[in-house]
C-alpha cells in the first residue's frame, strides 16, 4: 500500500511548486505530511477521547477499591488503593478471604464459568460459521442466474439488528415455538443445561455465517482460474483442487475473517443477554462486566481490563502465529499487489 501511495505522492508533490503561494521549497514528504496530520487529527482525537481515555481510566480504576461497607467494621469506606485485589477477586475468586472465598452465586464466583462459556461460544460458533461460510461461498462462486436474489437474502441476517435477531430466536425457541414443533421436542431452549448454549450458537451462526461467506467469496474471486485449469490438466480431483489450491489461496482472506469473527464472538453481549439472559451458565464475559457495573465500578474495571487483555491476546496470537495478515489484507490495494 505504501508503495502505491508513494508513487502518487511523488506526482502530487511535483504539481506543487507553481501552486504554492509562499514559494516554500516542496519536498516529497514535507507538505503532504503536514496535510496528512491535519486530515488524520480529527480521527485520532475522537478515537483518543472515546477509546484511549476510557481505557486509561479503567486501568487506573481497576487498582482502586470500591467504596462500600467495610465487612470488619461495618463502616462506609471510600475505597483507596486496592493493589491487585480486584484482579484477585476475578482470577482467584478471592472475595477477601483467600482463594475461592467467593460464595457460589455471587458475581465473583462466575469469572471462570463466563470465560469458559465465552471461549466455548467462540470456538464452536466460529468453526461452524467458517465451515458453512466456506460452503456458501463455494456455491455463490458458481455462475447462475439470480445471483442478486442470493446476495440479498444472504445480507438479510446481517442487516437485522442483533437485539432483534435475539428476540426473533427467542420466539422461535419458545417452549411452544416453531423449533420445538418442527423437531417434535419439548426442550426449554432458554432454560438450563446445554439447550441455551446451543440456542445462542445456532442464532449466532444463522446471523453471521452468510457474512463470513461474503468475505470468503471476495477471497475466492481473486484466485486465477488458470491455476485450476492447470491442476485439472495434471489430473487433480475436485477435492484435491480444493485442498491444494482453494484453501491455501483463500487463506489470507479467510484468516482475517476468522480473526474478526473471533474477536466479535469473544465480546458478544446482545445475543446471549436477550436470548437467554444468562440462563444455564450462558453469561459471557461482557455480560458479567455489565452486571458488575451496578455493584462496583472498580471491580468491573478490573474485569473489563481482563476482557480487553484476553481479546488483545487472542488477536495477537492470530496475527503473530496464525498468519492473519491484517494490515496487508485490510489495507487497500493489497489484493491487486498480489
Amino acid at each position, binding site marked *: 500500500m*505504501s508503495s502505491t*501511495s*508513494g508513487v502518487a505522492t511523488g506526482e*502530487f508533490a511535483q*504539481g506543487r511548486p507553481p*501552486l504554492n503561494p509562499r514559494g516554500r521549497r516542496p519536498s516529497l514528504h514535507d507538505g*503532504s*505530511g503536514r*496535510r496528512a496530520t491535519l486530515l*488524520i487529527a*480529527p*480521527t*485520532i482525537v*475522537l*478515537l483518543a477521547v472515546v*477509546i484511549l481515555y*476510557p481505557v486509561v*481510566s479503567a486501568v487506573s*480504576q481497576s487498582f482502586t477499591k470500591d467504596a462500600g461497607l467495610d465487612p470488619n467494621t461495618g463502616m462506609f469506606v471510600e475505597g483507596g488503593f486496592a493493589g491487585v485485589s480486584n484482579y484477585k477477586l476475578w482470577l482467584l475468586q478471592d472475595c477477601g478471604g483467600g482463594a475461592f472465598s467467593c460464595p457460589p452465586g455471587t458475581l465473583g464466583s462466575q469469572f471462570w464459568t463466563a470465560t469458559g462459556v465465552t471461549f466455548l461460544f467462540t470456538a464452536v460458533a466460529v468453526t461452524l460459521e467458517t465451515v458453512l461460510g466456506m460452503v456458501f461461498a463455494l*456455491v455463490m462462486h*458458481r*455462475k447462475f442466474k439470480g445471483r*442478486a*436474489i*442470493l446476495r440479498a437474502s*444472504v*445480507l438479510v*441476517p*446481517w*442487516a*437485522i*439488528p442483533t*437485539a*432483534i435477531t435475539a428476540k426473533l430466536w427467542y*420466539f422461535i425457541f*419458545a417452549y411452544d415455538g416453531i423449533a420445538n414443533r*418442527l423437531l417434535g421436542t419439548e426442550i426449554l431452549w432458554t432454560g438450563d443445561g446445554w439447550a441455551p448454549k446451543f440456542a445462542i450458537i445456532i442464532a449466532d451462526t*444463522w446471523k*453471521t455465517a*452468510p*457474512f463470513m461467506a*461474503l*468475505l470468503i467469496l471476495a477471497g475466492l474471486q481473486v484466485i486465477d*482460474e488458470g491455476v485450476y*485449469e492447470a491442476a485439472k490438466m495434471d489430473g487433480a480431483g*475436485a477435492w484435491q483442487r480444493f485442498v491444494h489450491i482453494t484453501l491455501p489461496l483463500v487463506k489470507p482472506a479467510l484468516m482475517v*475473517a476468522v480473526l474478526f469473527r473471533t*474477536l466479535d464472538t469473544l*465480546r458478544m*453481549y*446482545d445475543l446471549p443477554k*436477550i436470548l437467554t439472559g444468562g440462563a444455564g451458565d450462558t453469561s459471557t464475559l461482557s455480560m458479567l462486566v455489565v452486571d458488575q*457495573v451496578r455493584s462496583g465500578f472498580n471491580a*468491573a474495571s478490573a474485569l*473489563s481490563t481482563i476482557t480487553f487483555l484476553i*481479546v488483545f491476546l487472542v488477536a495477537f496470537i492470530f496475527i503473530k502465529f496464525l498468519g492473519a495478515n491484517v*494490515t496487508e489484507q*485490510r*489495507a*487497500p490495494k493489497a489484493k491487486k499487489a498480489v
Partner: protein
Amino acid sequence: MATTTSHQRGRAQVTSSGVEVVQPRHTRSTILTYTGVVLICLWGLLPFYWMIVTSFRDVGFTFDTTPWPTHVTLDNYTTAFSTARGNHFGRALVNSLVIAIATTVIGIVVGVFAAYALARLEFRGKFYVLGLILGASMFPGVALVTPLFQLFTDIGWLNTYQALIIPDISFVLPLTVYTLTAFFTEMPWELEESARMDGCTPGQAFRKVILPLAAPGIFTTAILAFTAAWNEFLLASQLGGDKVQPVTVAIASFAGAQPHQEPYTAVMAAGTIVTVPLIVLVLVFQRRIVSGLTAGGVKS
C-alpha cells in the same frame, strides 16, 4: 469469477470414477448449484419470514405453526406503538434515527478526511495510524461501559443523545475509515492531478473532482455506518435512559399485558418495522453493500 464458464462448471464435477462425460455432469452440477442456492436463500430468509408472518397473527394464535399468515390482524402494530404498557416504541424509533444519523454523519465527515490522507498521501507513521484504527475496531465495547458510565454520571450526560452518539463513533469511525480508504485507493486520481494542473487548489480539486467521484463509495460506507449505529445495544442499554432509548433497547425490554408475559406478536411487529427499511436498503444496494463490506468493514 467472471471467467468461470458453464463449461468449466460442468467439468468441475469430476466423479470418483473419473470418466469424462461432460454433459450429464454439467446437469448434475447445475442441479447441485441451484439446490445450494435455494438452501442458502431459505437459510437467510426463513427466520425473517417467520417474524413477518407472526407479526400479522392474532395474539391468540401466537404459536400457530401454519407456514403462511392466518388470523391476520394489524393489532400487533398498534400494540407495538401503544404507550399503555409503558413502552415507547415510537419515541425509540425517532431516537434511533437521531442517534444513527448523527453517528453516520460525524463518522463519514471525519472518516473522509482520514481516508483521503491514508489513501493518497505519504507520511511518517502511517503504519501506526492504520494499526491504531485497526486496534480500535477490535476493541471490546464492554471496556468502555464502566469509565463512560462514571464520566457521564459526573458531567450529567446520562440519558442524553450525546452520551449515546459519542461512544457510537468509536466503533463507526474505524469502519468508515477503512471502507473509505479502500474506495479511495480505487479512484482515478489522475483526474485530481489534471484539476491541479488547471489551477485548482488541493481543496478545490477535492471538492469539485474527487468528492463527486467518491459519492457512491461514501454512500455505501454511510449505509454500513448507519446499520452499525442502528444495531448498537450494549452502550445504549447502559448509558441511555427512557428518554433517549433506541429501538434495539426498547424492543428488548418490551412489556407485555401482564408481568412476565412476553408480547411475542407485538415484538415481532416492532422487529419487522425496525428491520424492513434496512432490508429494503439491502435489496436495492446489495451489490454496493457487498463491495463495501468486503472492502474494509469486517465488523458486523
